[in-house]
């Protein structure tokens, strides 16, 4: 049996599509319109969902605070231990408060100071992530702490009551989970991860808080027991886990509802696409009965006819879906609406092509079954 190379089938499909301009244009318009409709409705919702969820994710739903009650016996090496957990994006450990004063005002107001160890100190201050120019811990102050120490700027030096004066290296932002520690004064060790000081007589430090930001909010619940285990507190009762439960719940609700809404819209629009496309192709098959009869008579197998019609439809559907996607993207961009992810665009294009191809199969089979004698004989 002759096997017609796919290259020749595709070339014939493209040539046939070009020669049947009205039908081809109708197919392209239908696919473009419906792919565009999906992107302008479900795609727009997906873009908004993506933006809302990103906002929630970046805010707090991925961040978990572990409060360590006094005597939990957790030292700063916990940062290195937890850093081995692949799902933890960032973490910090905060030490217990120790009073300090402005080095220039030994009798000034006492302000609590805390050591901080972190995998990325730039979260608190961009300057904190750079190597220290002096072989000494540095201090970063919140706006409120600057004021409490009686400083005009985040400069000068502060001194723990039991230690030496430390240089003030800059201002620190105050993340939501550290607001309770205001006025916030963070002491950054010279080498945050390697030279972890022991802060108690028995060599075990006494951290007061560990903050971890996870990569995937959906995996947090499953990972918490492991993380608590790795923290290695004397007793699990001394580790209080806190996360923004309301945000996490909001995220789940939003994600679920918007996804369900999107699915309904997409299903509806693609159902319309299949019906309209099948209608167009049935009309084309009826109008071009002699064409298919002639092809059959000249040696086209039923399988070849089906393949050619499906390939012709796929070619037009690709052109239509890409056109529709580009136009929809322009409309969304001009309107200031959030764009869905590129993968969403690709998925819509692929689905539109698959829907059009699915719609083409039945008319193509009908076309392939035309009997040459009934189409070609002249009464």
């Amino acid at each position: 049996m002759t096997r017609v190379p796919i290259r020749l089938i595709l070339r014939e499909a493209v040539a046939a599509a070009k020669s049947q301009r009205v039908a081809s244009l109708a197919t392209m318009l239908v696919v473009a319109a419906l792919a565009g409709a999906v992107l302008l409705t479900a795609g727009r919702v997906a873009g908004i969902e993506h933006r809302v969820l990103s906002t929630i994710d970046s805010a707090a739903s991925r961040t978990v605070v572990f409060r360590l009650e006094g005597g939990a016996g957790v030292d700063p090496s916990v940062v290195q231990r937890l850093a081995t957990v692949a799902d933890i994006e960032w973490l910090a450990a905060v030490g217990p408060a120790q009073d300090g004063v402005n080095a220039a005002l030994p009798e000034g107001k006492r302000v609590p100071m805390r050591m901080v160890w972190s995998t990325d100190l730039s979260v608190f201050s961009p300057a904190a992530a750079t190597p220290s120019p002096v072989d000494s811990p540095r201090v970063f102050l919140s706006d409120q702490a600057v004021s409490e120490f009686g400083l005009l700027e985040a400069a000068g030096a502060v001194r723990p009551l039991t230690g030496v004066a430390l240089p003030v290296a800059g201002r620190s932002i105050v993340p939501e989970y550290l607001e309770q520690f205001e006025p916030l004064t963070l002491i950054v060790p010279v080498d945050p991860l390697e030279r972890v000081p022991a802060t108690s007589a028995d060599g075990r430090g006494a951290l007061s808080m560990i903050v971890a930001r996870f990569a995937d909010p959906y995996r947090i619940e499953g990972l918490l027991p492991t993380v608590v285990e790795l923290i290695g507190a004397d007793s699990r009762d001394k580790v209080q886990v806190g996360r923004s439960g309301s945000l996490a719940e909001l995220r789940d609700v939003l994600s679920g509802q918007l996804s369900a809404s999107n699915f309904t819209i997409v299903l509806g629009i693609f159902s319309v696409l299949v019906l309209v496309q099948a209608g167009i192709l049935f009309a084309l098959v009826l109008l071009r009965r002699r064409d298919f009869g002639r092809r059959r008579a000249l040696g086209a197998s039923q399988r070849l006819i089906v393949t050619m019609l499906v390939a012709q439809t796929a070619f037009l559907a690709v052109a239509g879906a890409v056109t529709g996607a580009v136009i929809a993207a322009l409309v969304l961009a001009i309107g200031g609406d959030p764009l869905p992810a590129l993968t969403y665009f690709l998925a819509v294009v692929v689905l539109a092509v698959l829907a059009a191809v699915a719609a083409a199969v039945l008319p193509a089979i009908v076309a392939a079954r035309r009997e040459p004698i009934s189409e070609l004989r002249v009464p």
Partner: protein
Amino acid sequence: MLTAHEIRFGYFADRPIIDSFSDDFYPGEVVALTGPSGRGKSTLLYILGLMLRPDSGSVRLGEEPVSALSDGPRAAVRAARFGFVFQDAALDATRTVIDNVLEVALYRGLDADEWRDHAQRLLADFGVDLDPWRRPGQVSGGQAQRIALVRALIGDPEFILADEPTGNLDAATSDLVFTALRARADAGATVIVATHDPAFMVRCDRQVQL
């Protein structure tokens, strides 16, 4: 050799229009299928051309009963070994003249470009003196039938089947068509023509009356 063996066919089971037809068609001969309208000339032609399956009996190419093949292999035999001329040319109005001529190449699994020069020469030989990029709607009926003839001949088929190929043609074009078919028969092809045209019939090697 093309053999029809005990062929029976009817559009309604109880009314066969062809019953127990048997004949052998040899290379080098031009055979006319004749008879009044409704006797099944065209139907027999389409059965011999493997476009219709007989209700019983068989069509053989040599010893192979090709009418019993499934659709794919039968289509392949049609494309590779048969050439067809239809009553009204049956050209694709949306494609160019040259595309129409080259259509069969696709069904043989060949790149049409391989035949392009040959097709242009054949069109010129048959007096189709026009821009080959024109479409069938822009040519006369006589020219359309010549184009259809070129399409049937271009792949040098072993069997050429023609259904009333001169039905709507003037005498000069009819003569050109017969001369072309005769030449192919002389070159070894088997030519079978369903026709009402008495002038055509008498020029054939033999007539099969239905």
